């Protein structure tokens, strides 16, 4: 099949990095989701490994604790036959004061093909991407973006409802401190969904309306007419101080319960990036109920990350 063929889906992926959905076009996002379909099938096989990244090395460089994202990336890389190295900064030279760029240059000198980076500072992956030739994949930076999470949310949504265009999607919870929320807004609006954000006033950041979303402080308003909701995790470990009086108070006003779901569209899709705080953002009944796709999100995350690793690795060479 070395022949040039007509009429096939053609798209040249040209970006060596995935830094955020803000920087991608609608076509690029759709192409990642399309490519992920192919990898989804790979993850259902008995032998879940393909040789597409044989001989490549992927490094997980995590400046923040993470289990699910790191594991998901590690599995994705391994299923592509890449070698994987995990670095968490608690046990690395970062403790000795090495700068981000120096760390990046050292990793590049080790001939690592892809660096998956999570950092507590917004924009850290962008700095790294400019400094090194290796591909950089953002696995969450500060309050900025978490593109693969948003991609897997959209992938799940699309596989459940068949499309993204025209859907009403409400994002509920700590909008102010959520990179998942920001990436979702960028992606969903580019693909034509109507996005509503819902939270107590204090958790709605200034200027978020400029991203093209509707704002509400009333949960019932956010649920009405929604085709899907994405419930964000209350980041209890990031001292939210006086953001709301008590966890119980928050659950009363903003917690998703089965009573509330009964008033929604019957087949409303309930998503959550995990880990769930049961009894704070949503009740266990909802989390484990028929509308919840939370565990499908986890499964789809591997396919989406395989697609991303595959695309950035093979894009880079063209640019070089």
């Amino acid at each position: 099949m070395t022949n040039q063929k007509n009429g096939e889906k053609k798209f040249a992926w040209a970006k060596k990095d995935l830094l955020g959905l803000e920087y991608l076009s609608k076509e690029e996002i759709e192409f990642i989701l399309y490519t992920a379909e192919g990898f989804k099938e790979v993850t259902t096989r008995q032998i879940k490994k393909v040789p597409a990244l044989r001989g490549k090395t992927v490094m997980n460089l995590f400046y923040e604790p993470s289990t699910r994202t790191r594991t998901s990336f590690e599995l994705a890389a391994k299923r592509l036959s890449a070698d994987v190295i995990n670095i968490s900064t608690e046990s690395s030279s970062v403790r000795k004061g090495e700068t981000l760029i120096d760390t990046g240059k050292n990793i590049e000198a080790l001939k690592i093909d892809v660096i998956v980076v999570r950092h507590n500072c917004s924009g850290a992956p962008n700095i790294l991407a400019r400094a090194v030739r290796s591909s950089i994949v953002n696995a969450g930076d500060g309050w900025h973006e978490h593109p693969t999470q948003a991609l897997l949310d959209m992938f799940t949504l699309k596989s459940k409802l068949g499309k993204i265009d025209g859907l009403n999607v409400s994002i509920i919870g700590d909008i102010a401190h959520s990179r998942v929320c920001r990436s979702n807004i960028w992606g969903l609006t580019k693909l034509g969904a109507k996005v509503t954000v819902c939270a107590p006033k204090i958790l709605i950041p200034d200027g978020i309306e400029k991203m093209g979303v509707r704002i509400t402080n009333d949960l019932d308003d956010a649920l009405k007419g929604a085709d899907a909701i994405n419930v964000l995790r209350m980041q209890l470990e990031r001292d939210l101080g006086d953001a709301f009086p008590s966890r119980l108070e928050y659950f009363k006003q903003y917690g998703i319960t089965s009573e509330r779901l009964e008033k929604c569209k019957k087949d409303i899709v309930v998503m959550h990036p995990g880990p769930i705080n049961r009894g704070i953002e949503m009740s266990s009944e909802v989390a484990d109920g028929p509308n919840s796709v939370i565990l499908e999100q986890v499964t789809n995350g591997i396919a989406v990350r395989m697609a991303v690793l595959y695309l950035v690795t093979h894009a880079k060479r063209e640019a070089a």
Partner: protein
Amino acid sequence: MDPEAINKALERIAHEIIEEFKSVEDIAIIGIKNRGAYLGQRLAVKIEQIFGRKPNIGALDITLYRDDLTQASEQPVVHATEIGFDIDDKKIILVDDVLFTGRTIRCALDALIDFGRPAKIQLAVLIDRGHRELPIKADYVGKNIPTSLKEVVEVRLKEADGKDEVVLCEKL
């Protein structure tokens, strides 16, 4: 080749397959995406017309197994593989449009073997244009077309291109 000739060639391949296997039970037709998959479907329909039963049918995407991923000037698009049955102990007929260097078939064999252990794998192609770079040979050939390396064989199928034809053109 015109639509009539393509149809005739597939019909003949279908008959040859039936001759070889005599039963539809344990055979499976697996087309290589994209055009091989369409040809595989057509072949399955023809076998059904003769046997009265449709064989197992699947479609294989070999992108992730390609040996030129790092060299291809244009990044190949990954599609989903669709094999909805167990291939263990099946007699598989791989189907593709053009047999050229043999590298696609090498990828397809690697990919298939990741799905299980078939009893046998055979190869059916619409066009054999020669110039093999690997020791691979087709069991069923629609038409042998001697070509030069400067030429390109384009197979166009209704499902993908709106019309059925095979044309030989000069490489641009």
